[in-house]
């Protein structure tokens, strides 16, 4: 079936609800409205208010009660309406969700999924365009993944729900209703915590995830026309990182550029640059370069395209890498 990313997530959530009676969805406006992005459209109607739960307007409450539900044997999948509204729940996520297994010496697992629409480019007002992934990837006990296309969305959400670890699940909101793609329900998906080469190339490796995968693929297309061959890796998992495919690629190309919408300073790119430098120092022809959001708050939407790494800024970094 051909689905948008939002519809693919919807189908994945539906299947998870069907497969496991312990799966519950909880969030603001996810019931009758189907979520502000319609990702949960129709699910409350089909699975009832016991399983698709409209919560009071309180993110700490949503995640905190999900902890209790998980302790009682449920597998809560919570929706944070927008990236910028996860912070009221930050304490519950970092101090409780992330540490429960550790504190209980494994007696109290925390199989929870925290879905967060993330990233910018939708012309929104403040707090609706943020990329908080590094804050969660920096937190031991949490796993963090980002999907970039409908097929991955369909499989990854089910795999995240099946995971016995808490997973922060990032959804590129700009792409929710963008292009449709084929989703094969009979396919065997790659493991959740794995990265993938999505375009083969030989001159430079571009590492992307979530919304920047599309930017990277377009840049690779443009670069190919000018005789430069870019390999694009969709990281998919941000914590843990799946380094082998990344390192294998960089050893071949000798060059790496990381692109994310999040602020560059101490973003995922910093960790990747460090790991690549440690692991393939002698293969590198250039330092690992990072392209990302500036180290400022997210700007007003009329100039957000300047903040977001676009095709030109990525190609500029690729040129700098190649010229090194």
């Amino acid at each position, binding site marked *: 079936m051909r689905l948008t990313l939002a519809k693919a997530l919807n189908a994945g959530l539906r299947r998870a609800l069907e497969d496991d009676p312990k799966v519950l969805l909880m969030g603001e406006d996810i019931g009758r409205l189907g979520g502000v992005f319609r990702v949960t459209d129709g699910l409350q109607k089909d699975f009832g208010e016991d399983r698709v739960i409209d919560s009071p307007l309180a993110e700490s409450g949503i995640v905190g009660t999900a902890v209790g539900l998980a302790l009682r044997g449920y597998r809560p999948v919570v929706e944070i309406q927008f990236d910028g509204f996860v912070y009221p729940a930050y304490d519950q996520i970092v101090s409780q969700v992330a540490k429960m297994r550790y504190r209980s010496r494994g007696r109290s697992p925390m199989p929870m999924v925290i879905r967060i629409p993330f990233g910018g480019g939708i012309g929104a007002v403040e707090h609706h365009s943020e990329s908080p992934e590094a804050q969660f990837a920096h937190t031991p006990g949490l796993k963090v993944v980002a999907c970039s296309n409908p097929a991955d969305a369909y499989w990854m959400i089910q795999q995240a729900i099946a995971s016995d670890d808490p997973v922060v699940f990032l959804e590129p909101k700009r792409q929710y209703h963008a292009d449709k793609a084929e989703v094969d329900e009979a396919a065997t998906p790659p493991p959740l915590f794995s990265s993938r080469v999505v375009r083969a190339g030989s001159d430079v490796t571009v590492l992307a995830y979530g919304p920047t995968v599309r930017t990277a693929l377009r840049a690779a297309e443009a670069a190919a026309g000018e005789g430069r061959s870019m390999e694009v890796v969709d990281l998919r998992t941000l914590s843990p990182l799946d380094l082998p495919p990344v390192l294998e690629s960089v050893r071949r190309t000798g060059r790496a550029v990381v692109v994310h919408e999040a602020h560059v300073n101490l973003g995922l790119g910093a960790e990747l640059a460090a790991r690549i430098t440690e692991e393939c120092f002698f293969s590198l022809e250039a330092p690992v370069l990072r392209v990302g959001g500036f*180290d400022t708050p997210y700007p007003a939407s009329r100039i*957000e395209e300047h903040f977001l790494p676009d095709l030109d800024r990525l190609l*500029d970094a690729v040129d700098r890498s190649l010229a090194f």
Partner: protein
Amino acid sequence: MTTHPDPAARTADATFGPDLVEVFGPSQADGGPDLVQLLTPEGERVHHPDFDVDLTPEELRGLYRDMALVRRLDVEATALQRHGELGLWAQLLGQEAAQIGCGRALAPQDFVFPTYREHGVAWCRDVDPLHLLGLFRGVDHGGWDPAAHGFGLYTIVIGAQTLHATGYAMGLQRDGVVGTGDAARDAAVIAHFGDGASSQGDVNEAFIFAASYNAPVVFFCQNNQWAISEPIERQTRIPLFQRALGFGFPGIRVDGNDVLATLAVTRAALQRAREGQGPTLIEAYTYRMGAHTTTDDPTRYRLSSDVERWKLKDPIARLEVHLKRNGLADAAFFDDVAAEADALGARLRAGCTAMPDPDPLAIFEQVYAEVPDELVAQRDGYAAYLDSFEEAGR
């Protein structure tokens, strides 16, 4: 030990908890017996034992003018969004009386902490509506000077501003401008929030701090019955104003579609605060007549018959009837207001469409008081990058 019902036995659309009619009583839809009202939906002036206002005809006409112009502002902004000039707009349609009533109760030295929907209060604080449009157009995060207007920036993270209001009020206490008896000096703070926001931890913490320090703050909740798609019953099982008691200060429910009652109640609460008698919670009982924002589709979750019922309680229509019936305003007055509204609409359209996009390098401004060298370098690097396109284009 209680036994739990078998969850599987529940139907898909069963709700938890007790029957709401049992809890609130059947008159809940009308705001219940505690509702303070001075002007009925039919435009009849009624009296209340505890609250009253004595306004001159001119003042009454002023309130009408405010509401009519603010409605026009709202209609115009909604249209500008439809034409692609604004990214988004949060409509206040139906909430004009709640906002003008409390806005006109403020003294110049008071300070307001708004949500993102307080366009009517902004109007009362002389914030140019073009600044509001600028925010929703995406040229900045709020172009006005909060201190100059006694009106804080719009706050989009639900409930956060109630704590800021409480802290600001604590500052007033320390500055000795509470309870001096000097009406030109004593100040108070008002914090706006919605029914949905009442569920946030921040709001409940604000109540506790305000009570604990007897802070001069009025918590003004516009209960417009909806938090996007979620009805008020998802947030509370008792009338919201009654929550105040549990925190240790008074709560009042006022007809938020009645500008006179809202003015009277807010004046009294602000006066209490200025005199040093501490916080009050006001629940302005009203209705969100429009969508949550221009991206929302309320037909997915609420009945049009509900909206129709609330149309009969329109805040502007009832004052209009009152003014006309009592000979307090003539046809020329209404014509003047209509003309003024047209002029405002034209000014907003022209001003909004002429608003330039900001300089991209504004991204780097005002992140810090002392700008780190690294950020300067990032800015300069981006400036050079932009220049390289200009040069290539030459």
